[in-house]
Structure formats: C-alpha cells, structure tokens
C-alpha cells in the first residue's frame, strides 16, 4: 500500500523514497546513455534498443511477482515456464500453423502447459518449504536438461524445424518461415524522434501487467499476498496456505511461458536446448533492481526494473565497443558486458539476502 503523499513533498524526498538499488542502477543507466551519446551513438538508437529488450523481457520479469508475493521467493525455476512455452510453440509450429494464428494458439497452449507444470512445481515448493531458493534453480536446470533430450526425440518431421542432418529439432527455429517473426513488434510500430516504438509488443506487456495488478486486488490475490506476508495469519483466516502457494506458482510459470512466446517473436527465433538456463537470474535481477524485495513485489517494480536492467545490458555492448575504440581484442567488450550483467545480478541478490535477514 502506498504511503500517504502530502502535497508539499519536494522532488528530493520523492527520490529518497526510491530504493537505493533502483537509484544506483538508474544513475548507472543514465551515465551509460550519456557516455553513449558522447562517443557518437544517436540518442534515439540507444533508447530504441533499451525499449526493445524491455519489451521482450518485461513479461519474464513479471513472472516473479506472484511467486514473491506468495512467499516462495523469486522464481528461480523460470526455465520450467520457459520450457513450457517453448514446447507450446514447437507443437503449434509442427502443425504448420503460421502468423497470428501461431501467436494466439501458442499463447493459449503456453498458458495451459505452464499452469500444469506450475502445479507440480508448486507442490515441490511446498514440500521443500524454507529451502525454496536452494532447490528451485536446480529444478530449472534439471528440466532444461531433460528437455534437451525431448527436443531430440520429439516425433516432428517439419523440414524447417529439424537439423539439416539427422534427427532432432534445431537449436534455433527461425520464425520467418512461419510468418511469425517480429509479429507483435511490427504491429503499429512507429518512430518518433529517432526512437523506434514496438507498439504491439508494449501493448501485450502492459495488458499482462494490468491483469497481474488486477489479480492482486481480487480475493484470491489478496489471500496469496497474505500467505507471503504471514503464513500463520493466513492460516488463522481460513486460507489454505499450500493451495495459495500452488496457485501463485501456476500463475508464475504460466506467465513465464507466455513471456518466452513474446521473447521468441521479438528476436524471430524459437531457441531450444541450453537456452532456457540463462533466464532466471536476469529476470530476478530485473525485478529486484526495480525495487522489489524477496518478500514483496509490485507490478511497478517490474516495469522500472526491466527497463533499467535490460536497458543497461542493451547499451553496454555498443557503448563499450565505441569507448574501447573498436579494439575488441578477444571479445573484451562482451566480457565487460557479462561483468556488468552478473555484477548487477550479484548486487541485487546480495541486497535481497540482506533484506531477508532484517
């Protein structure tokens, strides 16, 4: 609940209300944008690439809201949802469904598969209460590995999806064969002051955020939040704590599944095998940078955090390449980008762990 804001609040005291981590990363973001402009990148291009990554990452970041609110903590098992979404897309593509129909059907199937997977994941989280954050990441890794085999053995014979030689699905299935690459991104896309706005993608993001916001104002949503704050309070109020946690994780996993569908169209590929492994930490860092804690997350944290964190990563590559005067010896720039990314993840997780202790 927001604190009562009196009218004579000065700008400075408003700034102070923003969590320190958000301010720190925000300042860093601004510094990188300024550096980018100084070294010659057009401002519009920098903001465009920030917006691009925000658009594809926001829903994946959003997936952390229900799990954090229910007390399960950030969804370190995001790969489960991602695998569900990938499977949904692969199955729809195998039927040679194209374009908007592909988007619609794979989103629906992603929600169904994600909910089912989330149900079992939620039960697992209930069984290991108290050690969720130790178990969840490895659950994600395990699922990714298992699906590595599934991708190889699925009985699909669509020529555009298979390896050129031998059996099994490709690492990257290009969506342009199916008229589904950038399908949301290109919808109502426009350019203003050099900034490319991928309207369709952003609409989907904001609709998802609005639905999440509304959900946490329903009876069930409020009950889930109470479970996360104080399981004993919730129990005394007649709420089934385990059931609430399962519902929260079903939603979280289903949202992640939808998130990967949006992500795939935003890059134009359905990427399989190891690919889901690398999603949990950036998504979690995003929501934490946006001001969420390990116990409390709001939709606003998702929007702010995904923009700052993903925006920063989007800018790091081009800006640092220029700063180093295009002398990218041995991929130094990419190393710097990894240092920035993992440094912020480390910082955000450390802050979260400290917050949990207090």
């Amino acid at each position, binding site marked *: 609940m927001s*604190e009562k804001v009196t009218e004579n609040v000065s700008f400075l005291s408003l700034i102070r209300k923003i969590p320190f981590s958000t301010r720190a990363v925000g300042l860093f973001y601004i510094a990188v944008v300024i550096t980018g402009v100084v070294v010659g990148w057009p401002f519009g291009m920098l903001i465009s690439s920030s917006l691009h990554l925000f658009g594809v990452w926001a829903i994946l970041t959003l997936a952390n809201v229900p799990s954090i609110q229910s007390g399960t903590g950030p969804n370190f098992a995001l790969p489960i949802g991602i695998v569900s979404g990938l499977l949904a897309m692969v199955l729809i593509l195998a039927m040679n469904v194209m374009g908007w129909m592909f988007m619609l059907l794979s989103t629906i199937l992603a929600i169904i598969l994600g909910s089912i997977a989330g149900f079992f994941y939620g039960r697992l989280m209930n069984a290991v209460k108290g050690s969720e954050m130790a178990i969840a990441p490895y659950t994600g890794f395990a699922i990714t590995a298992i699906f590595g085999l599934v991708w190889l053995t699925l009985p699909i014979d669509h020529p555009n999806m298979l390896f050129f030689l031998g059996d099994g699905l490709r690492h990257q299935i290009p969506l342009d064969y199916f008229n589904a690459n950038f399908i949301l991104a290109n919808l109502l896309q426009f350019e203003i002051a050099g900034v490319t706005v991928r309207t369709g993608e952003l609409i989907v993001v904001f609709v998802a955020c609005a639905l999440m916001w509304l959900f946490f*104002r*329903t009876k069930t949503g409020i*009950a889930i939040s109470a479970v996360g*704050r*104080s399981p004993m*309070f919730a129990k*005394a*109020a*007649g709420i089934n704590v385990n059931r609430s946690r399962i519902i929260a994780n079903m939603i979280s996993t289903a949202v992640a599944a939808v998130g990967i569908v949006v992500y795939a169209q935003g890059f134009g590929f359905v990427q399989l095998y190891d690919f889901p492994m690398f999603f949990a930490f950036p998504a979690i860092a995003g929501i934490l940078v946006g001001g969420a804690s390990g116990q409390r997350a709001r939709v606003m944290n998702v929007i702010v955090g995904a923009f700052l964190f993903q925006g920063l990563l989007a800018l790091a590559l081009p800006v640092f390449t220029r700063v180093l005067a295009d002398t990218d010896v041995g991929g130094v720039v990419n190393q710097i980008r990894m240092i920035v990314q993992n440094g912020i993840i480390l910082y955000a997780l450390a802050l979260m762990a400290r917050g949990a202790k207090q």
Partner: protein
Amino acid sequence: MSRTLLEFKNISKTYSGNQVLKDVSFDIREGEIHALLGENGAGKSTIMNILFGMPVIHSTGGFEGELHIDEKKVDVNSPFDAMALGIGMVHQEFMLIPGFTIAENVKLNREIEKNNIINTITSSLFGKRMKTLDRKAMNRDARKALDKLDMSIEEFTLVQGLPIGYMQFVEIAREIDKKGLKVLVLDEPTAVLTESEAEHLLSAMRNIAALGIAIVFISHRLNEITAVSDRVTILRDGEHVITKDTKDTNVLEIAEYMVGRKVSIDRTSGEGRQFDDNSDIALSVKDLYVAMPNEQVKGISFDVRKGEIFGIGGLAGQGKLGIANGLMGIYEAKGDILINGQKVALGKTRQMLGMGAAFVSEDRKGVGLLIEESIEDNIVFTAMNIHSEFLNALGLANKHTIREHARKMIKELDIRCTSEKQHTGRLSGGNQQKVCLARALTQKPSILFVSEPTRGIDIGAKKLILDLLLKLSREQGMTIIMTSSELAELCSISDRVAIVCEGEMVGILPPDASLSKFGLMMSGIKEAEGEVAS
C-alpha cells in the same frame, strides 16, 4: 541456623519504562533449598537473570540494587562472572551435545588433559591444544557427580537417546562437578519429568543441599515445594510478597500469596450468571488434544452455553492457549467438537470461520495482524475471504466500502491512528489489539475466541476491550471464550472460569470463588486434595 550465603538487596529493574522488579530483597542461606514462587511475569526469571549476569539485563540498562555473596558486594556482569563466583544454573532448555557421552558433556570445556608425545614436542607452538584428554579422570569425576545424584547410569553413555529426565540430571551433574559451586538455580526442573523422576530429583536435591550448596528452586508445583524446600519466597507483580519458613505455611496460604489480587476493573453487575441446564449449548468440546508447542492440551472437555462468557485461566505453558488455537485449526488437534449441536472437523479453519467462529489470537504480531499492511486491509481481511464481502461486481476489492467500514470501526473501538491507511505495525499494542478485535467483529461471529486480549496493553485500552466483550455478550448474545493469564480480568467479566494445568482442566469455578481455590487449581491441585493439604 546456617549462615547467609547470598543476598539480594533492594533489586529494581526496568525494561523500557516497564518496571518488572520493585525493590526486592531476600537472602539465601548455605545448604538450604529455597523455593522461588510467583505467577508468570512476577519477576522470577528477571531476578535469576540478574543473578546470572545475563546479557539481556545489561543490554537493557542494568539494574538497581546490590548482590552480596558471603557478605561482600559482587558485580556480576556476565555469566562467566557468575560461574567464577560459584553460581550454577540449570535452564529449562537443555544445553547438551547429543553426540557426546555423559562424561564429555559434564566436563565440557573443563576437560582434564594429559601430555603425549606430539604435545611434548610441539607445546611451544600449540600450547595446551595438542594435549590428550584424560578420559579416565574425566569419567571418574563424572561418576562422582552422578553418584551424588543417585544416578546409576554409565558415565560413558551417549547423551543422544537418553530419556529427557536423564538429560536434566546430566545438566545438574555438570553444575555440581564445577569446583566451588555455592548456589545452584533450578528453573522449573520437574516440568519435563515424570512423577517418579521428579521424586528422584527432589531426593537428589536434598543430597546436594546436604553438601552445603544452596539451591534456588523455581517451580509452580506447590506440593513439591512444600515437600522439599526449607524456605519460600513469593514474588507478585515484581514485588517481594513474603519470605517464610516452609514449615510455617501451607499450600493454601502460598497459593493465596501467589495469586493475590489487584483488581483494577470494576465488576459490573451480572457476572457469574447462572445458565439454565436446558439452555442451548453453543460449543461442546470433548477430549480435546492439541499439539501446540509449549501449550499442549491433553484431553479437555467442556460445554459453553449460548451467550456465556467462558474464561480459561492457568499459568503460562500449561495449555490454556492451546485450546482456542486447536479449535481454530492453527495447531494440530483431535477431539469431538459440536458447534450449535453440529459436528465440526478439527483443523478446518475455514469451516470454523464459516460457522460463525472468530478468533483473536494471543500472538498479535505473528497471527493476529499483517503488520506491513494498512489498518483497513487488516480489518476486512477475514470477512472478505470467508464471506466474500467488500468485493465489487468484478470480484475486486471495493476500496470504497472497505474504507467506510474501517472508519466506522476505528471510531467505534477508538483506534488511535493517523488514518485508516496506517500500517498496523506502527500502532501501539492496545490499538493493534483493537484492530484484531475489529477484524473478528467484522466477521459478525456468534462465537468469539479471544486469547490474552489485554496482554501488554495500557489500562485504558484494557478497560475498553473488556467492556466491549461484556457488551457483545449482553447485547448481542455473543458467546465468548476468553483465555487470559490475568485472573483478575477473567473473573471480572466471565460467567465461569476454568483453570488449566499441565494440559488438563483442573476445574471450573464461579468468578467469585476464593483466591486460594484459584491458586491451588493453577498448581494443579484439585479442590478435594487442597482441603486435605490444608
């Protein structure tokens, strides 16, 4: 008469403005068993913490007054000081290492060592650290200590798997093995023991006292105290009531001293209403068992009539709090429950709430409130969840009706706050309790369980809450089951008061029964036995 060993002189202690000990003075003699008695919150543990130099005393500003040992003033600033002065304490929670033998536990950190080859060579480098344990000597010492306690168990047995009673003896053995032990404090040592173990312990205590060691014995079992102690000291509300030779007093008198009465709440007319045997029974409990940690209930049965205020009293840790928690499904429970004649399954909180029961928990911050949420959200929470109230047509929380209702409740219960949006964590204890009550009342209950409704709140809020409970019962015919540690308050509004001891219901008394009767029951003595004892 033996000489005075330890003296408490004018001890006062304040915890953040709350005086818990007021000018307490008494002395302990060499070789005596001195019983220290008092209700919960009387100041027993505080005075023992002072004696033992516990950090909790010194981190909260120390204490006033002086401690004298052998007629010399001493400063006990830490447990180490206390040990050096010959003060030993056996805590209620055991501090033993399960994987070590009894002897190893007894000699922990005071091991006997001997030289070996490596140590002789490296002594300049590592000093004592490389010495070998002299197990024979250690076992011998442990044997001696165990023999003093009449314990036949082998000293090389692992502590792991010992019955809980034996662990208690190992703790005591450790203390008496320490050289120069002068005072041994036993904090409720018999609480975890079976009857025969307790008897064994009492005789062991006599053996120890015969060695010239003074024993401070804290217990609420009056029969044990009269059986074993030489003198008793009684504290009440932080004040020293009396120190007496045990032979000059009796159980009844002790009970009365202990309970005392400081009635600050006027008794309004109508308490102790007699309910017709034919009137409807709102709640019937048969053979209730509740597995609430520290508040276990072991087979309790009672009936509460419609519109009655049923008080449940007893000392802390005896199980009185377990009753409401078990019935409301917070802790696992078994038994047969009828609400308005209808059978209810235990552990189904939702069903209980749906049948019109509401619960105000004794654990305000843990169970009673969402401390990071606003007053209004707290007040409507349960009603929204159980009865789907305060929702709009789309199933979303209806901010408007929530606010309206919260404002009404804030006014009715006089909740002092900046606005209905204030977080409940920032409210004072009394106002938090009012929010808890407001939430329960929002459910429009027919049966209301309130546990410790006035614990830790100021007198004004206390009066308002008790008056409110009375009014709900009188005007709306609400059935109220109130659990409280404060007997005076129970008696002031209840129609009947049940006393729980060691998980069982000792008896039910009218609120105007004599204090000694209540006192005896709180110590687990049924009326008949009490009369024999007196």
